[in-house]
């Protein structure tokens, strides 16, 4: 293999599994260390810079970081990254004074944001400090988009959402709430320099063709619309017997909300096997904790009505079969099951819909009637119109919307300044030794033996009787410290300097997880089998040095490295050093600031 090019920022970035997996590339270990040190405000600001809604995401994020967490590969469970983020948000001091200063002298460019969700708010957050005049349009009466209408208050208290939405609206954004934009042309005509569309995926799927759908209409609801009605208090009750159709996170929110506003016998009915439900495992757990049964392999057959009123539903029991490619087919068994109900909530997916975009403006639409949007620049075929969040490529999640927002803001800024939008700013990186002395590092390199801590919950009876009572209480400060100490500090990299190595084997002998090898070079597949512990996880890179004195090379399997620093401590010549790699996604306008590089 060729020697690893560690000057390529993506190499060490990939070693920080959590940060690499995060769509917004939040520097996770960096803020977890700050939480352990009690510096909650600093931890919050690192998050805020990167993901804009730490309080919201610390409660509701889809957490792509956690399945990626290295701790999950060497221990039973990953670090509770998401809930640590919440600790920073809950325990910070007032951070208003740390927010960007908004220039009074504007730069003369006007940007319209359509939709007030996470993507649009992120664009606003990035552009307002640069002097842009920003108009935001949203159909709801408050900002936040789906974060407000779809995420129930028992998971995300309104005060948390208000705080983080207001940090952005307070940047001098001209927000036009309660204003549904029914024509893109009307916005274009207002002469904006750029327009950002972050309107989400607003249409919930229906079972329009199922028998009885029309007769039972009064008691059959589309999940996301129903959740919005509950959030804005247009809907205050539901029948005692509720069937929730679907197996995603919206279904989990629907069933748990039903339980709080009158539902007694609430059931989730899903077509697929339970093991293949789309909902996050923890959200399924939370629903089951509230005694909501999940019926798997039940395919909706018909809505049963009596005298024009819904009384129940028929389901056909199906059996999953898999072909040799693992593709699933659900085959009917012929068994029909009737379930009584007063109300049905359909949470079977959602779709994009752009009835308000005139098709002759220049914004072209492609497959599935989706706008054609560039994956990197988020620009549409009409050069001043940009898309982001669920509106761009279909339903994802809040953190993805934020990541889109940051990138779209870069494009809008470059576009408005007459620069090429396809040229993207390089990430910010810094690599600095953490050595403080003999056996002493700036980070806690001892590896905690603790198992993942469980977030304490509110009393179930109390929680179920109040729709707005937050179920999760969050870690207390001691638990937060202990959980933070489980982090392996994967951003503190093992950096190897060939010409210092005397090949004494001290690092090989001390490494607790047998990562380090000195061996003859070879092809990657061959090397992977020859190492002290075979490197079977091909997704994780091998760190290969150039030739050493004996003609061998150093090969390190990054897979299960604990970043404990023992290799560097046992190295007599400092050929190994532990160096913190900070990777930041450059935001709009940041590449113009004079950055003094750290030379040592």
């Amino acid at each position, binding site marked *: 293999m060729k020697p690893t090019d560690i000057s390529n920022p993506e190499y060490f970035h990939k070693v920080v599994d959590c940060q690499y997996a995060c769509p917004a590339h939040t520097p996770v270990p960096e803020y977890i260390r700050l939480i352990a040190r009690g510096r909650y405000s600093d931890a919050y600001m690192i998050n805020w810079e990167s993901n804009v809604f730490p309080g919201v995401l610390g409660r509701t994020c889809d957490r792509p970081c956690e399945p990626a967490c290295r701790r999950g590969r060497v221990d039973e469970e990953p670090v509770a990254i998401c809930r640590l983020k919440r600790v920073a948000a809950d325990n910070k001091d007032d951070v208003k004074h740390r927010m960007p200063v908004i220039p009074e002298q504007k730069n003369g460019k006007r940007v319209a944001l359509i939709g007030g969700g996470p993507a649009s708010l992120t664009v606003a957050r990035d552009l307002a400090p640069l002097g842009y005049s920003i108009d935001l349009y949203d159909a709801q009466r408050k900002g936040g988009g789906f974060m407000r209408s779809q995420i129930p208050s028992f998971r995300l208290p309104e005060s948390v959402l208000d705080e983080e939405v207001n940090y952005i609206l307070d940047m001098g954004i001209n927000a036009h709430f309660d204003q549904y934009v029914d024509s893109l042309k009307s916005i274009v005509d207002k002469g904006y320099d750029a327009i950002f569309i972050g309107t989400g995926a607003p249409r919930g799927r229906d079972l329009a063709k199922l028998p009885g759908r029309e007769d039972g209409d009064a008691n059959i609801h589309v999940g996301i619309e129903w959740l919005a009605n509950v959030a804005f208090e247009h809907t205050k009750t539901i029948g005692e017997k509720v069937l929730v159709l679907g197996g995603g996170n919206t279904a989990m929110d629907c069933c748990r909300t039903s339980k709080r506003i009158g539902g007694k016998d609430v059931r989730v009915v899903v077509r697929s096997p339970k093991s293949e439900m789309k909902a996050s495992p923890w959200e399924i757990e939370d629903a089951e904790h509230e005694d909501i049964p999940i019926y798997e392999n039940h395919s909706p057959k018909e809505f049963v009505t009596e005298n024009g009123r819904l009384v129940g539903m028929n389901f056909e029991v199906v059996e999953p079969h898999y072909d040799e490619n693992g593709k699933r087919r659900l085959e009917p068994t012929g068994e029909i099951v009737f379930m009584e109900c007063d109300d049905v909530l359909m949470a079977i997916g959602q779709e994009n819909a752009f009835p308000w975009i005139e098709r002759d403006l220049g914004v072209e639409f492609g497959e599935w009637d989706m706008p054609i949007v560039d994956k990197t620049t988020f620009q549409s075929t009409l050069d001043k119109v940009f898309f982001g969040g669920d509106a761009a490529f279909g339903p994802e999640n809040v953190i993805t919307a934020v990541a889109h927002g940051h990138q779209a803001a870069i494009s809008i800024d470059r576009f408005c300044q007459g620069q090429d939008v396809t040229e993207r700013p390089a990430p910010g990186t810094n690599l600095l030794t953490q050595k403080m002395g003999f056996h002493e590092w700036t980070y806690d390199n001892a590896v905690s033996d603790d198992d993942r801590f469980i977030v304490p919950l509110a009393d179930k009876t109390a929680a179920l009787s109040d729709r707005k009572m937050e179920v999760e209480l969050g870690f207390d400060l001691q638990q937060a410290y202990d959980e933070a100490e489980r982090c392996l500090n994967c951003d503190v990299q093992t950096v190897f300097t060939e010409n210092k190595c005397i090949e004494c084997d001290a690092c090989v002998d*001390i490494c607790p997880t047998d990562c380090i090898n000195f061996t003859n070079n070879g092809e990657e597949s061959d090397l992977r089998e020859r190492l002290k512990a075979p490197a079977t996880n091909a997704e994780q890179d091998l760190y290969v040095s150039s030739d050493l004195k004996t003609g061998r090379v150093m090969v390190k399997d990054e897979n299960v490295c604990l970043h404990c620093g023992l290799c560097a401590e046992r190295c*007599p010549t400092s050929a190994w050093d532990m160096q913190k790699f900070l990777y930041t996604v450059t935001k709009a306008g940041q590449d113009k600031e004079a950055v003094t590089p750290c030379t040592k």
Partner: protein
Amino acid sequence: MSFIRPNIRHPQLAVNDLGYTRANYEGALSTLCAGCGHDSISAAILQSCFELSIEPHKVAKMSGIGCSSKTPAYFLGNSHGFNSVHGRMPSVATGANLANRDLVYIGVSGDGDTASIGMGQFAHVVRRNLNMVYIVMNNGCYGLTKGQDSATADRGSASKKGIPNPYSSIDLCETAIQLGAGFVARSFSGDKEQLIPLIKAAVSHRGFALIDVVSPCVTFNNTANSTKSYDHVREHMNATGTFDFVPLKEEITTEYEPGQTEEITLHDGSAVRLHKATESLDFSSRRSAMNEIEKHKEKGEVLTGLLYLNPQTPDTHELLGTTTTPLNQLDKDKLCPGSKTLDAINDSFR
């Protein structure tokens, strides 16, 4: 600060015949200097015992005093151990072996502990052919007292202090061959591929097995003018050949060219298979071994690998005609048969 090794291990660690992983053979975290050759030798002993599937409680680690003699704390944490008096490890090992002949005795000593203060004890334990593995972690200096030249430092070699050693050195391998050891080898801490099979064969050999391991002292004796530095040994190392240890159960399938490859069966049925670098070397001949060592010395080289092997030498128990049952398993009546028996023995001498 880390003086504790993390408890997490590689999730796919290999398992030996006993169902143990290497982790079951670990000891405490080393307190030796970073980069010390001794730590590599500890790791090689650990790996050998793992590969041989020796139950850790069937091993006794014996040592004297010195950096080397601290190492038994850093491997085989579940084995027996005795950290004895300076240079007196052979006596303690002899006593232990006589009391319980069923254990594997691994003696760890240094060049000072063996060739200076312990020279007398060393000579006699070789002569008695005690069934043990005697590993010398040989760095040519007294590391624990700031690096003075030891008795194995080569004449002219200079440590960190910079003054060439005026005295001639003791070659422990030649001494051991001369005194009748059945298994004599030399190795290098930086060459585990050679060291591990040597240790495995030494453990399987019945009788006294010496492995003199050149083990650089990074703090005091890893200098440009030292003959026991990493660089010097790597540049001047010349092996008698490569070496396979063939455990008893393994069927021999590979065929080698005659002449260059020699196979020697050990007392327990296992075998060592040698792929000799030169045909002139005869492992069963003391004269050939001495010649070969001296020949390389003249060229300024360090001859490593197996030097001499005679699996048929009678060990201490055989020489003394002791009971095959370990003494600790004999009951009181057998161990202390009473004054009548003593009288009878005394009478037999009259």
